[in-house]
């Protein structure tokens, strides 16, 4: 596995990450310890609520609330920039005109063929 290469949908597992066993500087260790402290605090909060015998309601997860709030309130932080305007035009405006053009030309051609009598109806269930 020494020649493992990452790809857009395939990541490098943490066990093959050289930083885990080569680069154990004090700063890296301190950062890992900070993360572990945060994790432990959250675990403690959850376990206290989970094992509380007087608890009757569900344990509310603030991270989930924040995620839901962020996903549903996108427009409050929307700002018209070049990128957002281009994307909006590309996905909202262009398809209208594009599909109108495609369908209109196709149907006009079919109409011409029917009028001229050259429309081939073999194997056609509907029109």
């Amino acid at each position, binding site marked *: 596995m020494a020649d493992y290469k990452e790809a857009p949908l395939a990541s490098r597992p943490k066990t093959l990450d050289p930083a885990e066993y080569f680069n154990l500087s004090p700063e890296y260790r301190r950062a890992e310890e900070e993360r572990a402290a945060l994790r432990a605090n*959250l675990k403690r909060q959850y376990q206290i609520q989970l094992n509380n015998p007087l608890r009757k309601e569900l344990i509310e997860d603030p991270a*989930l609330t924040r995620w839901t709030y962020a996903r549903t309130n996108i427009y409050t932080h929307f700002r018209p920039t070049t990128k957002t305007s281009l994307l909006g035009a590309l996905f909202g405006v262009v398809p209208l005109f594009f599909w109108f053009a495609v369908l209109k030309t196709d149907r006009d051609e079919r109409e011409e063929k029917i009028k001229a009598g050259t429309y081939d109806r073999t194997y056609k269930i509907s029109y």
Partner: protein
Amino acid sequence: MRTSPICVWSQVNSERKMAALRAGCWARALQKAKGQGFKHMFFGARTAAGLSKDALPGSYPKTPEEIAAAAKKYNMTVQDYQPYPDEGMGFGDYPKLPDRSQSERDPWYSWDHPDLRRNWGEPMHWDFDMFIRNRVDTSPTAMDWRTMSGTLLGFVGFMLFMFYAGEVFPSYQPVAPKQYPYNNLYLENGGNPEKEAEEVKNYKI
């Protein structure tokens, strides 16, 4: 089950206390709201969850203090916390977590939510619902991407090319139209018996 009189009395007492507490809460809320009007009593700045407004996602952080506060809000270290670039796409200060699916996480660790492989309170990826184990999987593959895509495209391309070549240069089993005897079945096909049919020879020696 026989309960002693003391237990029953304390239970009733505690229920009465709970009722009194609830009534007191209502009374206090009504008193507070009286000054601010009807609207504030029901539609005030109060989230449905127990979270306050500053625990919810906000706008893009610009100063280091805002960054530190946002990192603390999302339970991340300042080093790890990295918001989405401020391009007006609507992310606000939500953190940009690495695009790793939940199937990459350790299956043997005792997660708080084992099916989601997530702990309580852990910051969720923006596309969390895409990265659950039933959906997109970013775990390492048996071989690298180039080999896989090369093999697939190579095979599909080769087959397409061969089918196209078969259309351009068709090759059939050697067949010929069916040959009938008795001058192509002259009498059976309604030929005149008196008249002499022309000789049809379907072979060549």
